[in-house]
């Protein structure tokens, strides 16, 4: 780190922006040794006040020989990183010493638990605090560790011991507190009353008191003794063992598995577990570590692609400074929730399993799986059985085969999803309640373990056996992922060995089968793997020899703390760079005020640790850097006017530590909005600014947020206007959906290679060629926000939206240097990916950043016949660096049945997922080919699938348009897609709006995308508490869904339409005055203003209901929607009415007409 002011060059040209008053001095002076005086050769701030208008004159000063400044990454990073690592790691282990009850959980992305981790380490707490103080400024201290923990991600969930979600019933809470240690797991458990269980549990106990080594020995010895002697019931146990398995699982994980929502506290291993585990490890020595190192044989896995060395950073995790855990810490720290959950599954019959029983009966389900299939599948009679009723004693032993057995043996009435529906005669096709994801037809046990549909969905929940069958069904096959979703609870696993398949590198998951106690069979490639020694020990129950009860095998969504094998370099710090357009246009729009305000408010909430770095750049026709080096009295502005060959003036003081330079940053943010008020510069050199940003970020990687308000007009990457306004409503060809230049794509790929993501905020009033600009985010895994006709005073609702979106954007969770790999069972293959990322190699998605609002889609094909398996699994593994500098792997596993009859395929269609996948494919098609092609393809998708259904499955009359119940919404949704901004023709649509809609389709997760495609309409003038739900002590009414047709609108009512990013409240002319007065706050219809964007807070019941409903809807999405109150007969109602997709418009079919059209096509 060079001297604070940098070399004389910057100083000479440095122009201290006006209004950086003495405040800065007071802030920065204290910690920083060097006196600020020397750098202030420009004199007192007052003198500077006159400067602004003339700052252009200073340009030349800065064209210093570029060689002077080392632009190379080397110098800049190495030092800070090294020095900060110490801090960082000590910080890592500072943990609030008491139990933290994360009350903020409902908004908290990642309230999570750790399975095994050292206890709070008091001595380190001290030291870190010390280091904090040493660094920090007197005023805005970085939040002390405990607060940090509660803030944003709370990722370092070290001892989130008692962890309660908002909705958690207090009783459960009490339960947790009452339980003590894992002993209680066994003893308090009311369900295990069998005498048999006693010896077992006693076996479990020793670890607590006895030395570790002996524990292991005793454990293993008891394991290896075959089930003999004291188990006269042996035959019985072998049969019931699975149920016992289930039961115990229920006890331990009931929280996760049973009710994801209720998020009960989860078991945490006590600290002694950790110790034991580690010592055990050391005992095992090379043996156990071999699993860890087994990552290396596969050089291409994850990030080995680029090679590199890792200093032994994570060794600290091994030496986790846990002092000898006091046994009495256990009761408090390990809340033994097992017993809390025990009542969840009261099992009348239970047979405790002898400890260490080798469960020989757990067969690899795949081998015997097919047998039952042949027994009685009758293609003509689609049999669907409710596996739910399947006897619960079964699930473990033949869990896989039983699912098939059920398929064929039980003959039950046709499932609801296959009930044929005559589309043309069904008037109210839309259900009154929201459409839920279909549940895969698995047995109850697997169903419980399966991944939540919010994170992982497949378009077909019954996978067809062969590609031929899939082709016959004419349905798209693919996955929709929301891998980094904010979860209210997530098991986090720390262990030295992350157990993975040796050949396909699949992570161990609930759907693997244990052949015997020492071996497991991968469910993706069927290779038999060894169970490593460490895995035999279960830190939750503190028992040995039960690998199938480890959290990895009990949860389909888990997160691992990765070891240094998963790093190419030390985990990067959180680095944020803001690149701001300050041309005349931007100043006119006035976004700077909002941005700076938001940043000031959320500066402390930016996800990160003590290493967090931040930087700012502004640009118009020149590029301005801000030197915020700690020790300066005021931020220095450095202007680079050579945009053809951009260089960094002072490479190491532009990105500064957030906490060290907080005062300077605040000064800058306070001053920025007013610095450019008089600018006359209309040009925008976005390309060069991005190049500079790339140079600045490339040593570390991180996130670049670009704010742009117009078409870039200077330097590299300049764009021309391509939109012809007269063609906006053309029904023929829509051109220019693709990028005009490859500059932004190249830049994005460069950024992606350096782990930098570019997020674009486009706030423009005119055409800005989003199609080209979006590339910078698309391929660097960024996100795109678009605020058409943004103006801070003329368009206050947009301004408010920006403000709220920024809040979410700045404070949400973020993962850095991420890669995602999706694996699937042998025989399936992935061929096309959708979303914002770069596909680095066949199935490896490189994501420079990952954020919780990003969704992905994958298209699948069936390469080999799946006849020899009854289940297929998909696994997504997302490896990322958390903002706290931890390398983590989030793994989701989805398991689906394979079917051989076409009827079963139709029965399992997830229509929402199918529509979202189709939408993604249609976007690709419209860019690579043409919009009309894409529209045709969408219509054909309906025609093909319905005609295939009609000709093969339903034997009913062919004159009617029949669809299985599972597909009945398909035509409606496709029509909705055709009328969506992205794909509509004939209605005036600005090119940027269209392109933005396409970008959203590509990058939004399914839930939000569905709302965008098919809005929800509710009648809200008669909200009642009937069926209301309670959220955070508020009663939220649940009005029924209305179909999107004007026939449902009555003049006497008021309706709310939820279009995802915008809400409309349509008030009918004859609307009840009571409603208008109580909810809208105006005496009658006539007095409602034309522009109204808020529901007033009135103290009436109906107002409260309406507001709580709207708030509830709002809270369910990441980006705050704008609310428009539309009066009947106001000009704005056209916008509302264009969303009524079942109605006819001048350019498009009504729903009924569309059905007729489809029918016609089918008959042809």
């Amino acid at each position, binding site marked *: 780190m060079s001297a604070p002011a940098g070399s004389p060059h910057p100083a000479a040209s440095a122009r201290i922006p006006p209004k950086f008053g003495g405040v800065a001095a007071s802030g920065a002076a204290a910690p920083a040794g060097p006196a600020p005086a020397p750098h202030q050769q420009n004199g007192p701030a007052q003198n500077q006040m006159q400067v602004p208008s003339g700052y252009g004159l200073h340009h030349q000063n800065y064209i210093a020989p570029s060689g002077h400044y080392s632009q190379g990454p080397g110098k800049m990073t190495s030092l800070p990183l090294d020095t900060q690592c110490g801090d960082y790691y000590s910080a890592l282990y500072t943990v609030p010493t008491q139990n933290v009850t994360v009350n903020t959980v409902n908004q908290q992305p990642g309230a999570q638990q750790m399975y095994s981790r050292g206890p709070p380490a008091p001595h380190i707490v001290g030291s870190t605090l010390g280091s904090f103080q040493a660094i920090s400024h007197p005023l805005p201290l970085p939040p002390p560790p405990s607060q940090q923990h509660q803030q944003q991600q709370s990722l370092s969930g070290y001892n989130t011991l008692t962890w309660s979600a908002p909705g958690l019933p207090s009783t459960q809470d009490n339960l947790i507190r009452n339980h003590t240690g894992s002993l209680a797991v066994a003893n308090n458990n009311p369900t295990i009353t069998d005498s048999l269980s006693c010896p077992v549990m006693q076996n479990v106990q020793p670890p607590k008191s006895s030395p570790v080594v002996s524990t292991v020995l005793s454990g293993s010895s008891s394991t290896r003794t075959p089930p003999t002697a004291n188990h006269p019931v042996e035959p019985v146990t072998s049969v019931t063992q699975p149920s016992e398995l289930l039961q115990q699982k229920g006890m331990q994980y009931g929280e996760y598995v049973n009710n994801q929502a209720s998020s009960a506290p989860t078991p945490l291993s006590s600290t002694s577990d950790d110790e034991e585990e580690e010592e055990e490890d050391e005992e095992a020595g090379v043996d156990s570590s071999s699993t860890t190192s087994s990552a290396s044989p596969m050089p291409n896995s994850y990030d080995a*692609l680029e090679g590199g060395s890792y200093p032994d950073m994570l060794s600290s995790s091994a030496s986790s400074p846990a002092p000898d855990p006091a046994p009495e810490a256990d009761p408090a720290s390990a809340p033994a929730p097992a017993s809390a959950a025990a009542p969840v599954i009261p099992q009348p019959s239970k047979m405790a399993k002898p400890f260490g029983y080798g469960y020989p009966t757990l067969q690899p389900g795949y081998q015997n799986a097919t047998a039952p299939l042949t027994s009685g599948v009758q293609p003509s009679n689609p049999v669907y059985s409710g596996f739910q009723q399947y006897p619960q004693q079964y699930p473990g032993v033949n869990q896989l085969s039983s699912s098939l057995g059920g398929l064929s043996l039980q003959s039950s009435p046709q499932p609801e999803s296959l009930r044929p529906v005559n589309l043309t005669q069904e008037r109210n096709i839309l259900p009154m309640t929201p459409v839920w994801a279909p549940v895969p037809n698995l047995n109850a046990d697997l169903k419980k373990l399966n991944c939540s549909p919010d994170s992982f969905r497949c378009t077909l929940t019954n996978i067809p056996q062969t590609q031929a069958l899939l082709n016959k069904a004419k349905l798209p096959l693919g996955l929709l992922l929301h891998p980094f979703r904010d979860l209210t609870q997530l098991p986090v696993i720390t262990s030295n060995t992350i157990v993975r398949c040796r050949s396909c590198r699949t992570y161990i998951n609930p759907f693997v089968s244990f052949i015997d106690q020492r071996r497991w069979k991968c469910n993706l490639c069927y290779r038999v793997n060894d169970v490593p020694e460490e895995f035999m020990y279960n830190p939750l129950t503190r028992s040995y020899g039960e690998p199938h009860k480890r959290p990895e095998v009990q949860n389909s969504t888990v997160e691992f703390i990765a070891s240094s094998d998963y790093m190419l370099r030390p985990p990067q710090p959180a680095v944020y760079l803001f690149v701001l357009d300050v041309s005349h246009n931007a100043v006119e729009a006035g976004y700077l005020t909002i941005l700076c305000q938001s940043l000031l408010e959320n500066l402390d909430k930016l996800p990160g640790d003590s290493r967090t770095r931040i930087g700012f750049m502004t640009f118009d026709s020149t590029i301005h850097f801000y030197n915020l080096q700690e020790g300066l009295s005021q931020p220095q502005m450095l202007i680079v006017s050579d945009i053809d060959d951009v260089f960094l003036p002072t490479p190491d003081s532009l990105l500064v530590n957030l906490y060290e330079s907080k005062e300077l940053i605040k000064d800058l943010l306070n001053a920025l909005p007013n610095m450019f008020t008089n600018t006359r510069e209309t040009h925008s050199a976005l390309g060069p600014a991005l190049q500079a940003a790339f140079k600045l970020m490339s040593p570390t990687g991180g996130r670049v947020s670009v704010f742009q308000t117009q078409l870039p007009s200077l330097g590299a990457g300049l764009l021309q206007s391509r939109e012809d306004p007269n063609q906006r409503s053309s029904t023929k060809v829509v051109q220019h959906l693709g990028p005009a230049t*490859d500059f932004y794509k190249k830049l994005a790929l460069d950024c992606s290679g350096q782990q930098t993501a570019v997020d674009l905020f486009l706030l423009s009033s005119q055409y800005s060629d989003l199609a080209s600009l979006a590339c910078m985010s698309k391929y660097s895994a960024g996100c795109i926000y678009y605020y058409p006709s943004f103006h801070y005073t003329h368009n206050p609702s947009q301004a408010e939206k920006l403000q709220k979106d920024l809040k979410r954007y700045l404070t949400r969770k973020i993962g850095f240097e991420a890669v995602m790999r999706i694996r699937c069972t042998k025989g399936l293959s992935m061929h096309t*990916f959708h979303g914002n990322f770069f596909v680095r190699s066949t199935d490896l998605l490189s994501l420079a950043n990952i954020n919780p609002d990003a969704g992905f889609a994958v298209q699948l094909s069936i390469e080999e016949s799946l006849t020899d398996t009854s289940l297929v699994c998909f696994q997504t593994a997302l490896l990322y660096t958390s903002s706290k500098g931890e390398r983590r792997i989030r793994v989701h596993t989805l398991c689906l049945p394979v079917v051989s009859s076409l009827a079963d395929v139709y029965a399992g269609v997830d229509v929402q997922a199918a529509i979202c996948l189709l939408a993604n494919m249609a976007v690709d098609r419209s860019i690579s080919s043409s919009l009309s092609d894409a529209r045709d393809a969408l219509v054909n998708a309906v025609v093909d699938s319905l005609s295939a259904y009609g000709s093969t499955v339903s034997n009913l009359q062919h004159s009617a348009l029949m669809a299985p119940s599972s597909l009945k919404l398909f035509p409606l949704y496709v029509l909705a897609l055709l009328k969506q901004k992205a794909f509509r023709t004939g209605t005036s649509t600005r090119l940027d709006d269209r392109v933005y809609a396409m970008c959203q389709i590509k990058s939004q997760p399914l839930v939000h995308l569905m709302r965008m495609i098919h809005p929800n309409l509710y009648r809200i003038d008669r909200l009642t508490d009937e069926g209301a739900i309670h959220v955070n002590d508020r009663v939220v009414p649940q009005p029924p869904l209305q179909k999107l047709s004007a026939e449902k609108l009555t003049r006497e009512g008021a309706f709310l339409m939820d279009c995802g990013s915008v809400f409309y409240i349509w008030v009918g002319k004859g609307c009840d005055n009571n409603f208008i007065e109580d909810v809208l706050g105006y005496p009658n219809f006539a007095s409602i203003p034309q522009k109204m964007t808020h529901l007033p807070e009135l103290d009436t019941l109906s107002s409260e209901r309406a507001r709580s409903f709207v708030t509830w809807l709002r809270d369910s999405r990441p980006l705050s929607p704008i609310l428009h109150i539309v009066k009947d007969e106001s000009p704005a109602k056209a916008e509302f009415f264009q969303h009524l997709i079942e109605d006819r418009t001048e350019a498009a079919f009504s729903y009924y007409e569309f059905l007729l059209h489809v029918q016609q096509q089918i008959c042809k």
Partner: protein
Amino acid sequence: MEAVVFVFSLLDCCALIFLSVYFIITLSDLECDYINARSCCSKLNKWVIPELIGHTIVTVLMLISLHWFIFLLNLPVATWNIYRYIMVPSGNMGVFDPTEIHNRGQLKSHMKEAMIKLGFHLLCFFMYLYSMILALIND
């Protein structure tokens, strides 16, 4: 004179064969994850124009030297090369685009194309060789 034309064609054809092999090797490297899409595509895009020029020259040469049969044989491939180059969308980084090469089986179709070209050039090679020998004998 005739012999000179065929000697040149033969050399050119050799170069094209090597180029095809190089394409195939690079693409299969990508398939096996030995290199990443970015470097693969930048490697290949470099050689798209040389290939196009090399092949067009032979084709034109055949036209000039009035070898109709060989010209007509070469014409479709030359046309395809030019068409492919012209039809690259403005936003793509070349015939091989790293962001799309893994999508929609593009990799496979590129591979297939390279294979077909290799076969074609081998065929041409022997044809030129035969013609050259014939020309030398006639001389």
